């Protein structure tokens, strides 16, 4: 029994066989409940996940990170006793200590969603070019501005049942981050940001979002805005 029995970590994984077991076992020291969504990986990710104590859900085909998150949330929501849901990266760049802080804030009951931010405290770890682009994205995005967010594209989020149950991620690819922010802005959910530390290891740098993929995200988003109803 742990004080975090009501917290579920949702970890989307795509070809993370190298690190996934370590990340999951590391996180399980604090959070006993983890569901890893293997997003149709071509490597041995599933095998490594099976060796851990995490729940494994496998997409039969690769759908994208947004789809994997939605699947993981749906799975976690169906688990008995689940109250808080955290989205966590598979490449080891997020810290469980940050999730603990975020859960603590949610437990106070004045917030429905807590988003991680790399920019509230200047920790100097974010590569400068990334910092400029992400800050610009947060400043330019009308929805992020409405919520007064400093970081619109952080993968670390914790939400309560209410928020997780209402969230419907339809952007299968990487545009889901913006989709989540605009969903939050359009809802009456209470959103807060907490500073988090991101470990930019060589591995996560190599696996992470290249800035050029931002073009894809902008394109996806603009199509979605335009095709809404």
């Amino acid at each position, binding site marked *: 029994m742990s004080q975090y029995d009501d917290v579920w970590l949702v970890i989307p994984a795509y070809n993370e066989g190298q690190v996934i077991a370590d990340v999951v076992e590391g996180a399980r020291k604090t959070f006993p409940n983890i569901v890893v969504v293997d997003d149709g990986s071509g490597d041995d990710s599933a095998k490594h996940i099976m060796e851990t104590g995490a729940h494994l859900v*496998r997409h039969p085909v690769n759908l994208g990170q947004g*789809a994997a998150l939605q699947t993981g949330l749906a799975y976690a929501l169906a688990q008995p006793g689940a109250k808080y849901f955290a989205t966590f990266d598979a490449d080891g760049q997020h810290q469980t200590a940050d999730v603990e802080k975020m859960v603590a804030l949610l437990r106070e009951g004045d917030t429905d969603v807590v988003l991680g931010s790399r920019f509230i405290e200047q920790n100097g770890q974010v590569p400068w070019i990334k910092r400029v682009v992400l800050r610009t994205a947060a400043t330019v995005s009308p929805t992020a501005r409405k919520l007064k967010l400093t970081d619109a594209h952080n993968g670390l989020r914790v939400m309560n049942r209410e928020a997780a149950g209402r969230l419907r991620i339809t952007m*299968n690819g990487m545009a889901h981050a913006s989709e989540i922010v605009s969903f939050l802005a359009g809802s009456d959910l209470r959103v807060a940001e907490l500073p988090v530390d991101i470990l930019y290891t060589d591995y996560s740098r190599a696996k992470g979002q290249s800035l050029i993929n931002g073009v894809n995200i902008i394109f996806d988003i603009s199509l979605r805005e335009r*095709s809404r109803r």
Partner: protein
Amino acid sequence: MKFFWIQLVLILGSVTLAFMFIRRWDRANTRAWKRIAFSVFVLVNIYAVLRPTDVTWLAHQLGVGRGTDLVLYVMVLAMGFLTLNTFLRFRSLEKKLTDLARTVAINEGARLNEERFDLDLPISAPVDRSKA
């Protein structure tokens, strides 16, 4: 600037395209319209092959030099509609595929994890079945 009717036709066509893009169209309704458009297209084709001079005449009326040019313009528009149609179809297929894969993944996962951890979990999980 001199006004040509063809300009109106092309602009209207483009605006319709943009409009279709913004609006969520009613499927059955648009399918019927697409079929009508296709039938008209075939009939016009046959007519144009039988009487090519009429196409040139129509082109002149619209302010286009040659019948061939008119055909080209119409083709560009048709191409636009086709692309849009394919795009929308693909997106709706992608949504269906996602729902399907998610349902499979969750059900399989529930069974698998139940065995692995010797749990007693409810197998059915909520999956969003709302229309794309």
